[in-house]
């Protein structure tokens, strides 16, 4: 994979703080031609599925690094077409007071809009890596959506915590999260009183959001973290909130625990109840920069992008980049995508239901209906039935990111059945517009003339760059009948099942 002339999926790590080129770093930038296998590998990991358009983009830009650079500066990518689609979900980006003024108390519309807008962006945004990173952080700082307590506040969290900081620094992201009403409500901190603190958020902050359960902290650390967080609360209509501030941060000094606090080597006199917010900020910043946090974030990113069991050496290097860069995310991603481990990891990740279904929809050329009354409720519901509704994981720890978390028979069957539904265009009342002439979309105007050529063309299009074993190719041909000239049904009634079978192949579920 790292041969000089063949190129590789590796991406030069310019812009990193380190100036010394590692001896095994790929030298492909000397040969700035795009290798197809490498391009597909990078696209399949950093997007919700390679499409003919995204492959063309990479080729046109001349190098994988150029493509990655652009993805890492998403504002530079024109995304007006997707934004036009998103306009139908105005509450997905609304402030909490706006949501509260727009829908009834406890109404789930805003949360459903966040879910559907998330799905629409995965399908159609050109800022694909940004969307993948938003998903990553949404799981790392999971707030189940929908869940009733965040009915008015999830939209603002999505916009000003996750999307604002997805490619910024983790420290800023965590700080924003720790003052986000949605998080404070979700983990019960909004009602946490210094006399008897609710330990939920303090625990998750350490265990899930930062240092991790094996970091050696004690129950006393959890209690102290919970004490530090007391007072971070939320205005609502029963605690004196007004229409202008309901669902926004309220610091309640009367609930803040006062007295010396210590958490994993961080300490504070914490003597002034009015200054509790600054104390919390100090603790959060400290935790974001802990080496254990660096290890955890690095490991999670490596699991996301490289393999279910990433090499520790890679994790260590990424953790160093994280700390050296002041918890900045982009240098870590550059180091990751530029690593030999990434290059060598082709085929080592499995698509989860969400990536699978969105990827299939993208490969089938499903586009967005311009009618703003059409939504993605059907697809979001289907993903829920497959166990992975967008943003829907029910616990604070986020969806499993390894293949072992997704082995249920119901989920596998559901994926196969959904493939057939997407190929057949069964959901034509929603926001998805299906190709009217799928054979021409997938095969071009001049069709193959033999069954073998038809199967080859579909494999090349739908599982590109994968060496398909001869028995599998033969099985697909045998599905149509004896090899030879195309039969009458091959591009008609047998075409949709054939495409579905290709999408169902194990090679197709690799990411």
């Amino acid at each position, binding site marked *: 994979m790292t041969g000089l002339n063949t190129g590789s999926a590796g991406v030069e790590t310019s812009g990193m703080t380190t100036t010394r080129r590692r001896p095994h770093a790929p030298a492909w930038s000397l040969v700035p031609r795009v290798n197809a296998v490498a391009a597909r590998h990078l696209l399949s990991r950093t997007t919700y599925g390679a499409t003919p358009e995204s492959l063309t983009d990479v080729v046109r830009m001349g190098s994988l690094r150029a493509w990655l650079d652009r993805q890492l500066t998403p504002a530079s990518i024109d995304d007006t077409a997707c934004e036009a689609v998103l306009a139908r979900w105005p509450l997905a980006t609304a402030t909490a007071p706006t949501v509260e003024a727009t829908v009834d108390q406890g109404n789930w519309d805003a949360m459903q809009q966040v879910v559907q807008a998330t799905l629409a962006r995965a399908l159609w945004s050109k800022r694909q890596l940004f969307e993948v990173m938003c998903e990553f952080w949404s799981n790392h700082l999971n707030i*189940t959506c929908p*869940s*009733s*307590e965040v009915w008015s506040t999830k939209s603002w969290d999505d916009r000003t915590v996750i999307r604002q900081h997805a490619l910024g620094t983790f420290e800023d992201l965590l700080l924003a999260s720790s003052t986000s009403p949605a998080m404070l409500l979700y983990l*019960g901190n909004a009602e946490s009183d210094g006399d008897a603190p609710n330990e939920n958020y303090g*625990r998750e902050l350490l*265990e899930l959001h930062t240092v991790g*359960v094996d970091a050696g902290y004690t129950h006393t650390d959890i209690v102290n973290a919970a004490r530090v967080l007391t007072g971070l609360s939320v205005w609502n209509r029963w605690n004196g909130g007004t229409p202008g501030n309901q669902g926004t941060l309220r610091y309640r000094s009367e609930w803040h625990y006062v007295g010396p606090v210590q958490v994993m080597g961080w300490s504070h006199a914490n003597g002034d109840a009015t200054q509790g917010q600054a104390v919390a900020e100090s603790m959060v910043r400290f935790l974001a920069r802990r080496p254990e946090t660096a290890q955890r974030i690095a490991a999670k990113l490596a699991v996301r992008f490289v393999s279910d069991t990433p090499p520790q050496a890679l994790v260590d290097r990424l953790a160093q980049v994280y700390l050296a860069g002041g918890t900045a995310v982009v240098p870590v991603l550059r180091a990751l995508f530029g690593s030999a481990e990434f290059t060598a990891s082709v085929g080592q990740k*499995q698509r989860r239901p969400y990536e699978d279904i969105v990827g299939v929809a993208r490969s089938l050329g499903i586009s967005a209906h311009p009618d703003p009354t059409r939504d993605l409720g059907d697809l979001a519901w289907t993903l*829920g*039935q*497959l*166990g992975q*509704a967008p943003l829907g994981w*029910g*616990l604070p*720890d986020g969806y499993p990111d390894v*293949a*072992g*978390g*997704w*082995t*249920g*028979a*119901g*989920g*596998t*069957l*559901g994926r*196969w*059945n959904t493939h*057939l*539904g997407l190929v057949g265009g069964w959901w034509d009342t929603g926001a998805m517009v299906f190709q009217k002439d799928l054979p021409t979309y997938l095969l071009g105007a001049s069709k193959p003339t033999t069954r073998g050529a038809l199967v080859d063309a579909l494999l090349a299009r739908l599982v590109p760059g994968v060496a398909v*074993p001869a*028995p*599998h190719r033969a*099985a*697909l041909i*045998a*599905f149509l009948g004896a090899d030879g000239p195309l039969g009458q049904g091959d591009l008609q009634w*047998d075409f949709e*099942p054939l495409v*579905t*079978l290709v999408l*169902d*192949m*194990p*090679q197709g*579920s*690799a990411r």
Partner: protein
Amino acid sequence: MTVSRRCFLQGVGVAAGAVMASPLLSVRASYADTTVPYTGPVMVVLSLRGGFDGLSVVPPIGDPDYAVARPTIAIPASRALSTGDRRFGLHPALAPLKPLWESGQMAAVHAVGTPDLSRSHFQATEELERAAPGTSLRTGWLDRVLRIAGSGTPFQAVQLGDTAPSGLLAGPEPVLAADSLDAFSLSGSSWIGPRFATTLRALHHDVTSPAIAPATITLDALDTVAALVAADRTPKNGAVYPTGGLGDAMADVARLVRGASGLQAVSVDFGDWDMHTDLGAAGDGRMLTHLGEVAQSLAAFAQDLGSLFTNVTVVTLSEFGRRVQENGSGGVDHGHGNVLLALGGGLNGGLVHGTWPGLAADKLDDGDLAGTTDYRDVLVELLVKRQGLSTSAAAGVFPGLNPTAVGLFR
């Protein structure tokens, strides 16, 4: 839990002859030639999401504070069905289950509580299903049961009514989740024909991929379910299930009990208990209708299974009970202590178990029925007395719990 226990539970054989011919999961093929029918215990967890109002279901008609707290929705003693215990009646909607109560195949535990006092649907449900307060465990208690005592077959745990994973079963143990048995089929196979599945099988051979094992399990399960469905189309013993999701699900559970190898645990959800308004009294309202559907479904289930019902234990769980005091909308808000219903074999039946704390103001827990029996104690007893786990193994499912006998199971 020892290896030999796993092998015993493995069982594999099935009652319905047609199913015997179907392929079993390849990794368990060494057991496939046994002809011993699986007659092991099956536990059915019926999740009544939304906050089941135990005070309406098993009304404390002997407690003078009950009628006072609920002026319009209390079940009057004159309308309640007799439990044989002057303190409690049964809601009239439970009439179809009365024969089971009388024959000792149904019982209740009252004032069952959970360690969670949040009264939030989300948090209380999470804590109920995780059943590991104060720990970092992210698995459901039923997943932990299967980890130590699971048969390992694709059918060890089945979830019906919803394919989205239930929190009870959250974790690594294999679960077969389906809307229904009939819906567990390969889309398009009816018009494409068997070559569709044949090709799928061929595509999952001769290649190394993490996708192979789940695909093989799925294809095998499809065959097994198809055979089971074909061999067992109608309820037995004259059972008639009510129309609706719960009746459909329980009819499927009965088919699985009769026909599925290795079935140990079933999770069925039946929600919509969040009756803040229009709960109704003895003769009308949402409770009468909704509870009636539960009663008819479970009565049909018992009848359908006949003698096999003694192998089964059904328990109801809900994230919390409801306020003692009715609200201004003819309903009740989120509360705490609740009733737990149990049906099947091995019960000390026809009794209301537990310690009744009373509904006097000074006995309430923040306005709610206090929880005097920890639901985890009921589950430990179930796992030991009915599912064959050792006490220590069962207790280990619930970290931090020192199990206390409830007396629900013999």
